[in-house]
């Protein structure tokens, strides 16, 4: 039995095909999100990669920001439930998930089955999200994926206190103008993100294993800062971009199983 999970975000589209809810057959990531050709293409390309047709897929679950506008999806489930399931599948010891995405931050507590026990999301504010880091990277004239390397070379983090992205921008500029190195400033930015996310996370409680996922989880600098802030071991999820789609595919499989049991 084959199921597909589709995760359509604001900046990228991801799809995963799983067999019997236990093996990943194929996956695909397209750097275009909702409102573009991305969703359509990611479905086509993941089928191609698996050498399958749409007819081979028994159930499709869509998740993510653009989940409601996927024709052909059998169901849409929130990214909280899907990420929880996906990360837990990839790392069964997971009990708390910290997902720092492009536009929002989620902290999710899961039980031993990967079911959501509690969750919290950021308030109406970009601080601590991938967007925040994009703005900062622009100011520092570097690429977002260079931030990690830069902070690694820091001698001492320069504190960046503003939580407001706009204020933080001017704060970073002032610190650079004052002669602080880019490396030290980036370390300060990472601390700022970590602090913001940690504060949110503590509201639901951070029970180990704490696992980070989402685009920003690929930034070692932020992960390191989170470890320091929370004073606990933090793992990063394997296949961090695909966790939503994996979870969706798993939940799709669960749905079929339930339907079959009901019919039996």
């Amino acid at each position, binding site marked *: 039995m084959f199921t597909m999970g589709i995760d359509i975000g604001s900046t990228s589209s991801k799809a995963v095909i799983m067999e019997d809810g236990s093996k990943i057959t194929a996956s695909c990531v397209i750097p275009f999100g909702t409102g573009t050709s991305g969703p359509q293409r990611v479905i086509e390309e993941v089928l191609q990669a698996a050498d399958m047709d749409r007819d081979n897929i028994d159930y499709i679950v869509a998740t993510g920001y653009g989940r409601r506008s996927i024709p052909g999806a059998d169901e849409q489930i929130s990214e909280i439930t899907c990420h929880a399931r996906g990360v837990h599948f990839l790392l069964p010891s997971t009990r708390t998930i910290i997902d720092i995405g492009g536009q929002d931050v989620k902290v999710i507590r899961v039980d031993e089955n990967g079911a959501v026990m509690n969750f919290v999301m950021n*308030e109406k504010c970009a601080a601590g999200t991938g967007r925040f880091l994009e703005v900062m990277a622009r100011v520092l004239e570097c690429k977002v994926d260079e931030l990690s390397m830069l902070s690694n070379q820091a001698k001492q983090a320069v504190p960046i*206190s*503003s*939580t*407001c992205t706009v*204020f933080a921008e*001017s*704060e970073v*500029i*002032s610190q650079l103008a004052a002669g602080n190195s880019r490396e030290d400033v980036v370390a300060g930015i990472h601390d700022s993100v970590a*602090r913001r996310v*940690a*504060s949110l996370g*503590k*509201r639901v409680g951070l029970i180990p294993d704490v696992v980070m996922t989402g685009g920003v989880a690929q930034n070692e600098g932020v992960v390191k800062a989170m470890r320091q802030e929370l004073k606990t071991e933090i793992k990063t999820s394997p296949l961090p971009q695909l966790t939503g789609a994996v979870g969706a595919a798993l939940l799709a499989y669960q749905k079929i199983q339930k339907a079959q049991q009901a019919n039996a």
Partner: protein
Amino acid sequence: MTDTTTVKAAKDVVKELQAEYYAEANRAHEEGKLVAWVTSIAPREFLEAMDIVTIYPENHAAAIAAKKGSMEMLDIAESMGYSMDICSYARVNLGYVEAGDSAAGKVPYPDLLFCCNNICDTVTKWYEILSRRLNVPLIMIDLPFSHFDQPQEHTIDYIVGQFENAIKQLEQITGKPFNYEKFKHCLELSNQASTLWKESFELGKNKPCPFNGLDYFNYMAQIVCSRGNEKAVYFFQLLKDEIAAKVAAGEGYIQDEQYRILWDGIPFWYNLRVMAKSLKDRKAVQVASTYTENWALTYDTSDLRSMAKAYMGNFTNREFEFRFNNMCRIISEYSCDGVILHSNRSCKNQDFAMYELARQVTKATGVPVAIVDGDQDDPRAFSEAQYETRIQALFEMIDQRREAK
């Protein structure tokens, strides 16, 4: 003329007194005394009369921010679910309750809470939380907001009724009868201190201004914490004498002062340096603040109704006309060239009348007004760059106005 070489400077004395005050407070429980946490313009005389040691969480929170320790406390409170939007004094204090120590040292935990909402309604919510969290009794002195020029009789009736109720509560908590003798004496001392406090800052009307108005944010600690005992009377006599001596000698804080400024609101405790520097560099002196007037609490000590009226009278408890007239009066009496209003994220009571106040004051007096965004204890809400820009604009407006004359 006072020989200032043998008398200590007020700046040093207030530091000593505050150190003594905290040391005494931290010994209070050992010495079998009760500790109360109190709001800044509460009638502390009731507590002084019963030998209860008073601690001011607002004061402590300000000190924590001044010592750059507020972020730590804010993080703790926010992790508990307290929104970033609520008053930063409350968040810092609620964080301190969990941490038990701070960059500004420790204060003893309270045996009771004494909350007076003349300053705002936030304190009511904050103290409710403290009462449940620390499981201690809360004495609430509700001084209703006044829409009228004069408080109404039934409002005063209510307040006096609460005073009487508070006395009963104190007797219950302490197990002792209320000490009316000492209370009367405290009221006398209170009035003396308030009078001296007022007389000292009124000397700011002189040109050049004999003091740096920012120093009053330090001196304030004594009128808040010790009003009602001898220490405050001693200190404010000393302060007044010191300033009066300067006036007599024609001495100014900045001898060739160029600008006289009125500051409205709580300072940015975490960045006093930038406030001081932005004025000093321009030879500007803060000659007055609307804040200090709040503690000029004088009344007929034989009449609780008179005391009730006085305690209701601080400007955040008053209608717009009072705030406006008061500000215009200060500008005139202290010869102010400009006004800085702090749009303090934590103080909605002031903020939401601010834009209109600024417009009306400029219209009535012609004096330029700048509004700066920030917060009292939360450094994240303050941008030095933005502050500098606004202040610069203010001084340019003042210069422009002078040239036009």
